[in-house]
């Protein structure tokens, strides 16, 4: 990042994620944070900042013995894990804190009730959605997917190949929740949720906690893991939260987000060794691929079907299997996977050889964020 101290990721960790684990937000937060500390070789006393979406950072910090904190941030509805991650990185860069834990804690069970309740503004806006039967994100995703199919060269078979490619990565990831082989026929046999969006275009709801620790380059050099550096970040917000009313459903905020990111680094998309691009719904990853310019506009579907995102393709993408398979970690999985790829040798059978530069990105539509990481 330009300006401020150089920032590194030094620890990553997950809770025991799964379907209806029966564990609380605090439990998932505690497991994830302790795992990240152990990964880094840090003690509780080393942490002086905490941010989370899900749960409360002040509460978590006391529970975990990160006390006193000198920086904390409670992140609400936002572009998934990228938001706490970017804020944590900038807190370290600016000197507001030295070593910050960024978290995403998300429980499967209450998600629908939470979505319906929304925040203050969203509850108001829901009156223009709910009476029409527009109740779940899969439905705006249906609108975005259909418009994308209309404007692009993508076909349903391309979406099938996307899901199959992701499952292929998941088969090589022992932490993935969905690992059994999948075929194009399996995808096409899966029911529509909101046509043309199918069940296997959706991320897999689960209970999970994830934690990533950011600190200064100087401290990172003394820790257990090879540091992975934050080269640049980008954030964008260009509409209110009503995805259904986006004037352009194909070229959404990732375009602007990446303009911000690339303006902060000398690297370019041509330098990427792998990409971890949000896949809450399949069409989101396709939008990011086009926003990155790794294929021509409208060509992300054929790019996927021709193997462009596979381990031997032009840009290995979503190499942990993505949220459809590792479960809904809301992008934290992509930060963790990018970090492991750049450490080298930590991504097992899905390791990208000599990976030096990785991007991970979250969200789509009205808001999004991305972070560029380097291995040296």
């Amino acid at each position, binding site marked *: 990042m330009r300006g401020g101290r150089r920032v590194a990721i030094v620890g990553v960790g997950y809770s025991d994620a799964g379907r209806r684990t029966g564990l609380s937000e605090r439990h998932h937060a505690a497991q994830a944070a302790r795992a990240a500390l152990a990964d880094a070789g840090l003690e509780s006393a080393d942490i002086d900042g905490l941010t989370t979406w899900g749960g409360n950072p002040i509460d978590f910090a006391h529970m975990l013995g990160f006390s006193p904190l000198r920086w904390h941030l409670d992140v609400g509805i936002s572009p998934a894990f990228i938001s706490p991650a970017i804020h944590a990185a900038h807190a370290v860069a600016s000197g507001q804190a030295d070593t910050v834990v960024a978290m995403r804690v998300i429980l499967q069970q209450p998600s629908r009730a939470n979505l319906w309740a929304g925040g203050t503004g969203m509850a108001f806006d829901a*009156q223009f959605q709910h*009476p029409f039967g*527009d109740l779940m994100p899969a439905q705006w995703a249906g*609108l975005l997917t259909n418009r994308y199919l209309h404007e692009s060269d993508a076909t349903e078979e391309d979406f099938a190949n996307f899901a199959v490619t992701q499952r292929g990565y998941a088969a090589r990831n022992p932490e993935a929740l969905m690992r059994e082989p999948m075929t194009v026929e399996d995808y096409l046999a899966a029911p529509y949720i*909101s046509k043309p969006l199918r069940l296997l275009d959706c991320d897999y709801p689960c209970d999970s906690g994830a934690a990533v620790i950011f600190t200064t380059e100087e401290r990172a050099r003394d820790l257990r893991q090879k540091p992975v550096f934050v080269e640049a970040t980008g954030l964008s917000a260009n509409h209110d939260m009503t995805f259904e009313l986006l004037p352009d459903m194909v070229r959404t905020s990732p375009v602007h987000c990446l303009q911000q990111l690339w303006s902060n680094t000398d690297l370019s998309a041509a330098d990427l060794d792998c990409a971890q691009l949000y896949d809450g719904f399949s069409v989101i990853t396709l939008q990011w691929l086009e926003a990155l310019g790794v294929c021509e506009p409208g060509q992300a579907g054929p790019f996927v079907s021709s193997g462009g995102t596979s381990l031997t393709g032009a840009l290995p993408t979503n190499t942990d299997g993505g949220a459809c398979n590792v479960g809904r970690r809301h992008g934290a999985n992509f930060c963790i996977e990018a970090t492991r790829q750049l450490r080298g040798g930590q991504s097992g059978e899905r390791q990208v050889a000599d990976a030096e530069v990785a991007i991970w990105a979250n969200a789509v539509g009205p808001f999004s964020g991305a972070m560029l990481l380097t291995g040296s």
Partner: protein
Amino acid sequence: MTQQADLARPAPPEMVIDALSAPFWAAARERRLELQRCQDCGLFIHLPRPVCRRCGSFRLAFEPVSGRGSVYSYTETRRVFHPFFADRVPYLLASIELAEQADLRILSNLVGIAEPDVQFGMAVEVTFEDLSPDLTIPVFVPAGSLA
């Protein structure tokens, strides 16, 4: 095209109507589509907001619109996400571009047409459907089908 509410059905999802949005729903009850418009710069604003994002004016009022538009995107929901909609699945949601202003969109239902017959950009017009004795929503049909 209107349907009478069936009192035996589950209630529609609860919604928060306040002073800002009440004129929209009051107009719908009277089978008019009205949207918020800036009284200084003329921008139509949907969803309703306290301020004009183009000129910063707080002088906003609801005005009738033609109810004509075109289909920007659509999706056919196949799942029951709320009991009220159990007997309507599958149903069509659409983002409609209204004729009054570029990029002016409204989310609604497409009715009177089957999913395979919907075309991107097809002309549609508004009609109204009673969901309950207290709630009428604007929905859209293919242009000319109201005759």
